[in-house]
C-alpha cells in the first residue's frame, strides 16, 4: 500500500496523461496500467474555438486521484497560483510542485521548489515536489512537510533511466515520506530498478505515451513495478566479484 497524506493506493505507478497518440489508446493504457493517480497540467482554455474533446471529461474522476502539476511555473509564486487554480476545480487537493529552472534540461529550481512546497503545505495541500536527486534538498522538502518527494531519475522525457542510483538510495534511506521516482524512466527495467532501490512508487509519462504500443508498455510498466517491489521485499542476493557454482562440487569426478 502506497500511503500519501491521508490517502492509500494499491498501485505504485503514477501515470502522466500527456502526448498520447489518441484518447482511445490513452484510455486503454490508463486502464491496463492499473494506475490510480493521474497527473495533469493546468492551462488557459481555448474558449474562442469550437471545443475540442478533453481527456479528463472521458475519465470517471471518481475512480482516479488527480495529481495536477505546476508545469509552466518558473517561480514559487507562479506554482502556488497554479496549485490554487487546480484546487478550485474541486476535484483534487494534491499538487505536484514542478518549478523548472532550465528550459533545456527541464531540471527543477531547488530554491523555488522548496519555497513553493513550504507555502503549499501551509495552505493545506497534499504536496508532492518534483526535485533533482540532491540528497539534502530532499530532506529539506521533507522538513518543509511535503507528503512525498519525487526525485528525477534523469531529465524529463529523456528516457535515460536511473543515472545516479547512489543518490536515489541515499534519499530513500533517509526518507520519512514516500519516495516516488519521477522523470527519466524509459523502460520496464528502469522502473523495476527504481523499486529495487527501495522507492515507494514511480511516476512516468513519455515511456508509455511515446512507446510504439503504449497500451502494451503500460502493462509492462505495471508488471515491472510490481516485480521491482517484490524483488526489493524479497531481498536480493549479494553481488560477488567472482563466480560461485550453483551445481554441487560433490560427486563431480564421475568414474
Amino acid at each position, binding site marked *: 500500500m502506497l500511503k500519501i497524506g491521508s490517502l492509500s493506493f494499491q498501485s505504485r505507478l503514477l501515470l*502522466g*496523461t*500527456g*502526448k*498520447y497518440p489518441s484518447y482511445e489508446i*490513452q484510455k486503454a493504457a490508463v486502464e491496463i496500467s492499473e494506475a490510480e493517480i493521474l*497527473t*495533469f*497540467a*493546468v*492551462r*488557459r*482554455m*481555448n*474558449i*474562442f474555438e469550437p*471545443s475540442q474533446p*478533453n*481527456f*479528463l*471529461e472521458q475519465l470517471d474522476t471518481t475512480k482516479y486521484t*488527480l495529481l*495536477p*502539476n505546476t*508545469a509552466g511555473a518558473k517561480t514559487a509564486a507562479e506554482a502556488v497560483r497554479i496549485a*490554487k*487554480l*487546480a484546487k*478550485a*476545480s*474541486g*476535484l483534487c487537493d494534491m499538487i505536484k510542485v514542478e518549478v523548472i529552472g532550465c528550459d533545456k534540461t527541464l531540471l527543477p529550481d531547488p530554491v523555488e521548489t522548496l519555497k513553493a512546497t513550504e507555502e503549499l503545505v501551509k495552505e493545506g495541500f497534499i504536496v508532492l515536489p518534483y526535485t533533482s536527486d540532491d540528497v539534502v534538498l530532499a530532506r529539506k522538502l521533507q522538513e518543509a512537510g511535503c507528503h512525498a518527494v519525487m526525485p528525477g531519475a534523469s531529465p*524529463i*522525457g529523456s528516457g535515460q533511466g536511473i543515472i545516479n542510483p547512489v543518490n536515489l538510495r541515499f534519499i530513500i534511506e533517509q526518507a520519512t515520506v514516500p519516495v516516488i521516482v519521477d*522523470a527519466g524512466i524509459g523502460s520496464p527495467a528502469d522502473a523495476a530498478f527504481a523499486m529495487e532501490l527501495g522507492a515507494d512508487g514511480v*511516476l*512516468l*509519462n*513519455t515511456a508509455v505515451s511515446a512507446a510504439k504500443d503504449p497500451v502494451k508498455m503500460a502493462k509492462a510498466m505495471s508488471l515491472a513495478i510490481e516485480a521491482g517491489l517484490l524483488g526489493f521485499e524479497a531481498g536480493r542476493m549479494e553481488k560477488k566479484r567472482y563466480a560461485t557454482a550453483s551445481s554441487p562440487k560433490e560427486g563431480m569426478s564421475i568414474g
Partner: protein
Amino acid sequence: MKVLLNGESIQLAEEIVTVADLLTHYEIQEKVVVVEINGEILTRVEHQSTRLADKDRIEIVHFVGGG
C-alpha cells in the same frame, strides 16, 4: 462591457451579467473549468453569484494532459 478574457480584449453582450452567463455563452458551463477574475480565484459555487464588471481581467483555465 469590455473585459480582458484569456488575454484577449472582448466586448461582452448585454445579457452576460454573471460568470455563469459567460460560461454558458461559450458553452462551457458543463466543463471542468476554473475562473479567475482580477487575480481572485472563484469556486464553482461563486460562478452564479459573481457579477462581471467593465475592465475585468478574466482567466478561464482547465486541465490538460501533462506529466
